[in-house]
């Protein structure tokens, strides 16, 4: 059996990838995907710990996280569509009316 720490290492790696993606990429859609990666890496960690401890709570939380992620993306895409209609771009650097 693969030790728990390997899974956690993998999920930490995925989480870092997600964070780096959010920080470096500029397309709003890619940003959403990076955030999804962060959430799903957390899901991996949750099921791993649930498995290691033979405890159901961790697996239940994963469902909540999936639902919340879906709700968040629904709102996000709606906002993105609204912005695209006015500005015709999905590049977050060009969405810059507010500053100072």
């Amino acid at each position, binding site marked *: 059996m693969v030790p728990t720490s390997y899974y956690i290492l993998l999920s930490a790696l995925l989480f870092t990838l997600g*964070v780096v993606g959010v920080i470096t990429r500029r397309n709003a859609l890619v940003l959403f995907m990076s955030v999804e990666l*962060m959430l799903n890496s957390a899901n991996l960690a949750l099921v791993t710990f649930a498995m290691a401890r033979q405890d159901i709570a961790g697996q239940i939380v994963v469902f909540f996280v999936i639902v*919340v992620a879906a709700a968040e993306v629904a709102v996000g895409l709606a906002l993105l569509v609204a912005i695209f209609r006015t500005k015709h771009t999905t590049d977050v650097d060009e*969405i810059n009316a507010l500053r100072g």
Partner: protein
Amino acid sequence: MTEIIIPPIDWRVAAQLSIIFGWASVLLVIALFVPRSRTRIIGYLAIVGVIVAAVAGIPLWGVNAETFSGMLRLDAYSLTLNWLFLASTAITIALSLDYLPRQGIERSEYYVLVLFATGGMMLLAQGADLIILFLGLELLSIVLYVLTGFAYPRIASEEAGMKYLLIGAFAGGFVVFGIALLYGATGSMNLRAIGETLARQALTPEERTYLLAGAALVVVGFGYKVAMAPFHMWAPDVYEGAPTPVTGLLSVGSKAAGFASLLRFLVEALAGEWQIWAPVLAALAIATLAVGNIGALTQQNVKRMLAYSSIGHAGYILFGVIAAGATDGVAGQRGVESVLLYLIAYTFTNLGAFGVLIALEQRGEAAWDMGDLAGLWNRRPWLAIAMAVCMLSLAGIPPTGGFWGKLYVFTAAWLAGMGWITVIGVIIAAVAAFYYLRIVAQMFMAEPAREAPLPMDRALRVGLTLATLGVLILGFIPTPAIDLVQRVVLGVRG
């Protein structure tokens, strides 16, 4: 096959939450049958629901119970905060009743969404389990993303909504991963259970790594939500772009709820690790104070200035949070009290300040420049007085609510042994008074820059009066509020 046993539910604990969520769902249906020209009715009905929920809380005072397998708790702490959230919701709706039609964005969903946001805040105050904290946080945040972008197709509002959503989702990722690691370290999501596991000191080195990393990630996630430095950069843009009543709700409700759950998390689950997190949070508090107040000093846009000022206030509240975890019982108790008192004072003050901005805002024209406030005393004396009271309270000058909040926070920090940090805080507070007083000077001494008629609606007037009176009453007669918060006991001491 084993039978599934559903544990009995103590409905007292969930009473206020059920009223708010239930009423919001009912209103969503009622709104279908209300003609567009009468949308206001939904707003009034929403206020009725808020009042009912607040009254339903009165017989619950003194209840100390938990339900849903210890996930939801009702104690003096959460009840006090629930009342605060309900008050801020009622004032926000009153301020919106006039603002929305004036901006041409009156839709009945607005009031329903505000109610859902309130429910999210109450979940954060009552949550005793990491799952509930996560759900409350996301419920509040997702609703606030929608509300922030509510003034579409105004690009500033859409953009603010987008920025808030991206940052909020990012922060949410931190919270979830932190929760996963905390779960891995302790095998539980219940705050008290985590605290007990830590008290037994039975963690392996590997589990300890998970614990510290997880706690750090959760604090970072909440740091984004309450806009503490260095996770504050979204706040000025979002505050500026959002419809002004939403900005008010954002600056008080989401901050108060974020701090409420952060405080419970730190005190109930991580009290044993105070030696580790106190210095870190103290550094963050100083950074937050510096960033917020320096940012506010140079702002000409009043709405942005208030955004920076609210970042700064997060720093003062952090002082109380740190003190609340102190191993010394007296300092800890004083810390919890100071956070609550500060939040109460801050809520009324900020809502009042944003209420004045709402009154000044004309259709399609932003009146947030410092110059727009010039000579307000000659044009609208009552508005000028309300703004002056709020500015004095934010600056922490007696006899206003803000003064008692600051006094309590600094006392708590001092008692917790953070001597030099308290001194820095007091110095920054003195410097910060400058930009608040600059606004007062503008209103009372400068010549009016323009002669604009300022129609004021009754609901707006009531909301503004309530907020300002709240600040003044808290300032002149602080005893009832202090009595209230002194009955609140939190954490291992409770």
